[in-house]
């Protein structure tokens, strides 16, 4: 077989020690699960550019390094943000649940929230994504350390926002293999804000599995504000039962190389899946957004809207696929990707894809990329607004409609203020 990447070899070398020390090591079933994961990973190695889904994102800066010191360093810091205060907050520091920093008391009954490490430790097995072809999930399964497990009982609705913070500090060689599991009972509803922040060099690899029962609704926000020296490769899988609604908004600012991969499978009628997001990148940042929406049954709608602003040498990637299975009739799927290039050395690659095997459908996608509108810029200047203010105003306007789509006002204001911060640092 061909040569392994140094980092993959490093993980294989460390596996035997890990399997006997990581949470759940006393459980045979957890051990078996980890072994299955490492075997799959050993066969696949890290994703590379010859894999169609990874053609635009090159992980060699990560996989060539056996120690984090080898990773070239960026001087840019993560954007400072005023944090959003929420009633409930669960905090993970360097991949492990921190009880001290979390505020979880008083969660209404019917909402069960805990760390995965604890449930692995108690031997409670949970079903994991069995996909054979996604190396990062396999790696996560082999090395998962902690993460949150959230279950909401039938009919329970949480009115306030539940915030989950992942704070990472670089310096250690281990990746942060976070595994999250969310299950929403029938007719339940919850709003979640995930925040990923950090400093220094590290590799974050969170995997989140979501299942929504009949009539459930999840508003899922994610702020990716990792260190500019970090790798953030996340995968979110969501399954929608009938009448359920999944709304995801991912706001990406951080990371040296980041990828936000979301796969949603619509398995019941009258369901909705809305994946939106914005990314603001500068320096040598690389940000990849990859979505797959599978319509497996009839009478559903889905949408994706992503907007990106790319400055300096930053590079953006958007790959979005809508897949309509045979006999999944009366489906509407819409997709839009827009990228703004602010500098001569910024770039964007886009692959919006439709795979349609049913006829009674209405699907569309649009993709645009280009610079700021010169006419608008001149018009603003001719009214006395300086060029830099005019640019800022136009970038804000470019982002306005997607940020406006956020239904929770506190989150909307929070993200808007972060965007304003980012712009003022230009």
């Amino acid at each position, binding site marked *: 077989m061909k040569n392994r990447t140094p980092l993959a070899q490093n993980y294989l070398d460390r596996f035997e020690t890990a399997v006997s020390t990581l949470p759940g090591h006393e459980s045979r079933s957890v051990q078996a699960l980890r072994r299955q994961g490492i075997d799959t990973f050993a066969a696949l190695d890290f994703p590379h550019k010859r894999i169609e889904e990874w053609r635009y994102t090159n992980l060699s800066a990560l996989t060539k390094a056996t120690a984090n010191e080898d990773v070239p360093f960026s001087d840019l810091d993560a954007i400072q943000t005023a944090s959003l205060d929420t009633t409930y907050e669960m905090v993970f520091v360097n991949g492990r649940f921190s009880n001290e920093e979390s505020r979880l008391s008083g969660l209404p009954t019917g909402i069960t929230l805990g760390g995965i490490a604890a449930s692995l430790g108690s031997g409670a097995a949970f079903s994991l994504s069995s996909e054979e072809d996604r190396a990062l999930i396999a790696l996560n399964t082999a090395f998962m350390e902690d993460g949150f497990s959230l279950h909401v009982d039938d009919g329970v609705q949480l009115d306030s926002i539940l915030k989950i913070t992942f704070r990472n500090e670089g310096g250690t060689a281990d990746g942060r293999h976070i595994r999250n599991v969310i299950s929403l009972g029938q007719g339940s509803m919850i709003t979640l804000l995930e925040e990923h922040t950090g400093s220094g060099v590290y590799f974050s690899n969170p995997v989140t599995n979501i299942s929504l029962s009949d009539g459930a609704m999840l508003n899922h926000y994610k702020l990716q504000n990792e260190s500019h020296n970090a790798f953030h490769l996340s995968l979110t899988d969501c399954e929608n039962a009938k009448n359920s609604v999944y709304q995801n908004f991912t706001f990406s600012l951080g990371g040296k190389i980041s990828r936000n991969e979301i796969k949603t499978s619509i398995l019941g009628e009258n369901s909705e899946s809305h994946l939106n997001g914005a990314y603001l990148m500068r320096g040598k940042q690389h940000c990849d957004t990859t979505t797959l929406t599978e319509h497996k049954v009839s009478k559903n709608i889905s949408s994706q809207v992503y907007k990106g602003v790319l400055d300096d040498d930053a590079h953006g990637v958007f790959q979005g696929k809508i897949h309509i299975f045979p006999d999944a009739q009366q489906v509407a799927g819409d997709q839009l990707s827009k990228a703004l290039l602010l500098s001569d050395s910024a770039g964007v690659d886009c692959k919006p894809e439709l795979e349609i095997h049913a006829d009674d459908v209405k699907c569309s996608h649009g993709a645009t990329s280009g610079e700021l509108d010169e*006419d608008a810029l001149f018009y*603003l200047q*001719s*009214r006395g*607004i300086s060029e830099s203010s005019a640019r800022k*105003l136009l970038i804000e*306007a470019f982002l*306005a409609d997607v940020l406006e789509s956020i239904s929770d006002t506190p989150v909307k204001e929070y993200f808007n203020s972060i965007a304003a911060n980012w712009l003022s640092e230009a």
Partner: protein
Amino acid sequence: MLEIKDLRATVGGKEILKGLNLTINSGEVHAVMGPNGAGKSTLSYVLSGRAGYEVTGGTVTYKGKNLLDMTPDVRACEGVFLAFQYPVEIPGVASATFLKTAFNAQRKFRGEEELDALQFLKLVREKTTELGIKDDMLKRAVNVGFSGGEKKRNEVLQMALFEPDLMLLDETDSGLDIDALKVAADGVNRLRSPERSALIITHYQRLLDYVVPDFVHVLADGKIVKSGDKSLALELEEKGYAEISAA
């Protein structure tokens, strides 16, 4: 106020203005008329500083300063206002935000206190009432989805708000019905004063029935070929450009 001497300018490598001379004193209203392709819009863009309009010769002095040295926003802050022939649509930017940002930028430039949202809104309301403009326009994105008439009214509203010293009107009458034309003319006439000047660039003399100019110039092939008083406009209307330019 404005002194243009032997102005030459090219667009995309092609010379459009070929030695244009024009002097506008405080309080005067001048009209520049000319056939299509004479360089009318180029003149307005050169004066307002649009990129791509390259000045290759001559000078433009505004209030004793070199206008050509200034960036477009500084010209605006110095009191040069261009009413666009085709006002630009800016999706995502609310009109109110736009007006306030521009208004305060100009005040700041002059060393004046910026207005807060409330004070500003009050001022805008006064102006819209004065001009008979519906203020629901303020909530919409700049010029987006505006009819031709609404776009021109928006230009007039901005002019009323910014109170410029030099108004440049680029074919403001094109595509306007008679009511909208009157609103536009009214906007200019309200601002007419011994301290302010205006340059009206137009193909037809229609607008000049409502804003009576002190001087009329004929622009042909990048130069002023004839100047006169307001009767020249009527003469042009009657005889056409060909005859006058040839004379």
